[in-house]
C-alpha cells in the first residue's frame, strides 16, 4: 500500500510564521478544554458517579441561599405589616403633669401641620377597637382598625381581592370597608362582583358597609376577624372606650437617610404646637430600628453547613476518582507528551477535566435548585403571604456555580500535579 497523494498539512519549518502570543494562548486554552471535555465524555460513567455528591451539594447550597432570600422577604414583609416600612416614625404626646394625652383635634392639627411642613404624604392615624358585625350565624365583635388611606402602602397591606381604599371612598353614601379573608369567609365568601356588604350593628340600629377589598388571611385557623375603616367612618361606628379612651397612633413613612433629622424636627414642631405642658416623643418602630441581625441566621448557617459538608465529601469522592483515573492514564499522558503536550498543558487539561465536570454538575445543581424553589408547591410553603416574591436570586446561582468550580479546581489540583510528574519514557513503556 502506498500513500495516494502528497499530504497537505502545514509543514512545520523554521520559516513558518508563528501566530501571535494571544492566538497561541487562545488555541492552547481551547485545546485544553477540548481535551478535558473528550476525557469526561470517554469516562462519563465514572465522572457522573463522582459528580452526584457535588451536584446535590450545589442544589442544597443554592437552594438554601435562594430559599433564604424568599424567607427573608417574607420575614421582612411580616415586620413591615406590623411596624411599617423603614423608616416609619411614631409620634406620641402626653401632659407632663397629668399624663393625659392631648385632645385629639389638637394633636391631629399639630401632626397635620408638621407633615405638611416637611412634605410627608405617607401618614396615617391608626386606631384599634371593636366592631359589632352581623354574620349569618349571629352578631360577633371583630377587630376594627381606623386608618388613613396611605396605611396600606406604609404597612405593605396586599389585597387578595378587590382594592384598598381610594380618595373617592370618603364620598360614598355607604361607608367603605376592607375586610380580612377570615372575615370574608365568615360572611360566606360572597363574590366581590355582587358588591357584598357588612352589616355593622350599632346601639341605634344597623349600617351596611360596602366591602371594597379583601386582605389575605393572617391566621391559620381563621380566627383573626379584622376590618379596616377610614378614620371618619371608624369614629362614627367605633365609639371610644368610655373608661380608657386610647388616642390614635400617629405615624409617618419617611426616607431612612433623613429619618433622624426629621425625628428631631417633627418632635420640635409638634411640641411647639401643643405647648410646653406636653412632652412629645418621636421614635422609629420599623424593624430596621431594632432588628440587628438576620432572624433566619441560625437555620441558614445549619443548612449551609450541611451543604458545605456534602460539598467537601463530594470533592473528596471526585479527588479519589480523579487520582485513580490519572494512575490509569499514565500511558495516555505519556503518549500525549510524546506528541507535543507540554507539562503545563497536561496540568491544565487534567485540572480542567475536574473544573469542567464540576461546572456542569454545578449548572445542573443550580437548575435543580431553581426547579425546587420556584415551583408553586415550595413557594406556597416558604413564601406564603409574601407580597413581592423575589425572583431566584442571581447571587444564589453564582454561589452555587462558583463553589462547584472551586471544588473542581481544588479536587483537580492533586491529580494534575501527579500527571505533570509522569515521565514520558516511563509512561510510554507503562
Amino acid at each position, binding site marked *: 500500500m502506498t*500513500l495516494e497523494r502528497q499530504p497537505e498539512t502545514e509543514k512545520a519549518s523554521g520559516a513558518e510564521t508563528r501566530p501571535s502570543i494571544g492566538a497561541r494562548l487562545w488555541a492552547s486554552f481551547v485545546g485544553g478544554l477540548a481535551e478535558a471535555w473528550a476525557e469526561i465524555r470517554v469516562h462519563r460513567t465514572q465522572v457522573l458517579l463522582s459528580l452526584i455528591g457535588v451536584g446535590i451539594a450545589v442544589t442544597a447550597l443554592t437552594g438554601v441561599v435562594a430559599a433564604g432570600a424568599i424567607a427573608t422577604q417574607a420575614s421582612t414583609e411580616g415586620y413591615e405589616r406590623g411596624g411599617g416600612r423603614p423608616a416609619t416614625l411614631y409620634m406620641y404626646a402626653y401632659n407632663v403633669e397629668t399624663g393625659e394625652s392631648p385632645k385629639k383635634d389638637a394633636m391631629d392639627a399639630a401632626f397635620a401641620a408638621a407633615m405638611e411642613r416637611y412634605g410627608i404624604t405617607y401618614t396615617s392615624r391608626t386606631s384599634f377597637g371593636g366592631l359589632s358585625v352581623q354574620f349569618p350565624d349571629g352578631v360577633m365583635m371583630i377587630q376594627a382598625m381606623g386608618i388613613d388611606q396611605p396605611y396600606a402602602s406604609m404597612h405593605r397591606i396586599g389585597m387578595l381581592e378587590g382594592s384598598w381604599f381610594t380618595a373617592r371612598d370618603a364620598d360614598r353614601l355607604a361607608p367603605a370597608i376592607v375586610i380580612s379573608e377570615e372575615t370574608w369567609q365568615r360572611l360566606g365568601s360572597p363574590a366581590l362582583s355582587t358588591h357584598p356588604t357588612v352589616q355593622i350593628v350599632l346601639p341605634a340600629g344597623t349600617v351596611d358597609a360596602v366591602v371594597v377589598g379583601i386582605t389575605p388571611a393572617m391566621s391559620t385557623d381563621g380566627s383573626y376577624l379584622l376590618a379596616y375603616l377610614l378614620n371618619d367612618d371608624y369614629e362614627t361606628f367605633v365609639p371610644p372606650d368610655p373608661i380608657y379612651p386610647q388616642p390614635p397612633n400617629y405615624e409617618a413613612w419617611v426616607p431612612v437617610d433623613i429619618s433622624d433629622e426629621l425625628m428631631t424636627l417633627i418632635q420640635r414642631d409638634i411640641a411647639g404646637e401643643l405647648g410646653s405642658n406636653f412632652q412629645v416623643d418621636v421614635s422609629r418602630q420599623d424593624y430596621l430600628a431594632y432588628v440587628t441581625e438576620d432572624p433566619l441566621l441560625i437555620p441558614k448557617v445549619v443548612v449551609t453547613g450541611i451543604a458545605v459538608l456534602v460539598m467537601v465529601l463530594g470533592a473528596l469522592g471526585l479527588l479519589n476518582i480523579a487520582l485513580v483515573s490519572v494512575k490509569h492514564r499514565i500511558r*495516555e499522558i505519556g503518549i500525549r507528551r510524546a506528541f507535543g503536550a507540554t507539562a503545563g498543558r497536561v496540568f491544565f487539561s487534567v485540572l480542567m477535566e475536574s473544573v469542567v465536570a464540576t461546572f456542569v454538575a454545578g449548572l445542573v445543581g443550580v437548575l435543580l435548585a431553581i426547579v425546587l424553589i420556584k415551583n408553586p408547591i415550595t413557594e406556597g410553603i416558604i413564601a406564603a403571604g409574601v407580597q413581592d416574591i423575589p425572583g431566584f436570586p442571581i447571587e444564589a446561582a453564582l454561589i452555587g456555580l462558583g463553589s462547584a468550580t472551586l471544588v473542581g479546581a481544588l479536587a483537580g489540583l492533586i491529580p494534575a500535579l501527579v500527571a505533570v510528574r509522569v515521565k514520558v519514557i516511563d509512561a510510554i513503556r507503562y
Partner: protein
Amino acid sequence: MAFVELEGVTRSIDLPDGGRLDILKGVDLSVEIGDHVSIVGRSGSGKSTLLNLLGLVDTPTSGRLEFDGTPLDKLSGGERDRRRGRDVGFIFQQFNLLPGRTALENVMTPLLYAEGTQFWTRQKLASEMLDRVGLGGRLKSTPDQLSGGEQQRVAIARALVRGPRLILADEPTGALDVETGATVMQLLDAAAEQAGAALITITHDPSVASLARRHYRLDNGVLHRIEATSVQHLAETGATL
C-alpha cells in the same frame, strides 16, 4: 545540514545498589532530512533509549546532541516538548492509540498541541490523513474495533498529521504478522518519502531494516554502521537479530 546530530552521546542510569548501568556508549549519528536509517539490535541493546534521545524524550548523560541546529542543552523543557510535537512523529510497536477514542480523535490528538491553522482545522486534516492511509471509512471506529494493521495505520496517520521532519518508528511491525507488517512498512516508507521527512526505524527484523538506505547495529550500547548487503543477506536467510 544534519537535522539531528549525536556526537559521543552516552546514557547511563544509576542502579539501586549504587552501581551504574551504561546503556549507550559514545554514540555518533547524523541524520538529515530525507534519510531513511535503520537501527537493529538485540533486546536490551539500547535501541529504545537511542530513539528517546532522538525524539527529545530523554536527555544524554554526556556528549553532544543537536536538534535542528540547536544544542539540546539550550532548549528548555517546554521548548523540547513543543519541538517534539512540531517536528517529530512517533510510531510505537504497541500502536499506543488512546483507548475509547475514535480513529479520527486519535489522529487529531497531536493537532491539539499545534498552533494556528493546524489547530483550528484539525478535524479536516486528521480526516484527510486517515483517508490517505486508507482508513477514510473508519473514522468513527475505536481501537478495539480495528485490526492490528489498521491500528498501526492510524498510528502512522497520527505520526504524520503535523507534517514532522523526523519520524521515529520503534518496532513498527513488531505486533503485526509478516504480510501486514510488510504492507505497513511500505506505507510508512512512502509517507516519509512523500513528506520529505527523515525516517529512523528501530527493529530487530532484518526485512524491515533492509528497506532503509543506511543501516546501523547497536551492540551493548555501541552503535556500528553496517553494510546494506549484510542486512539484505540476513533478510533473505530469514535470520533475526
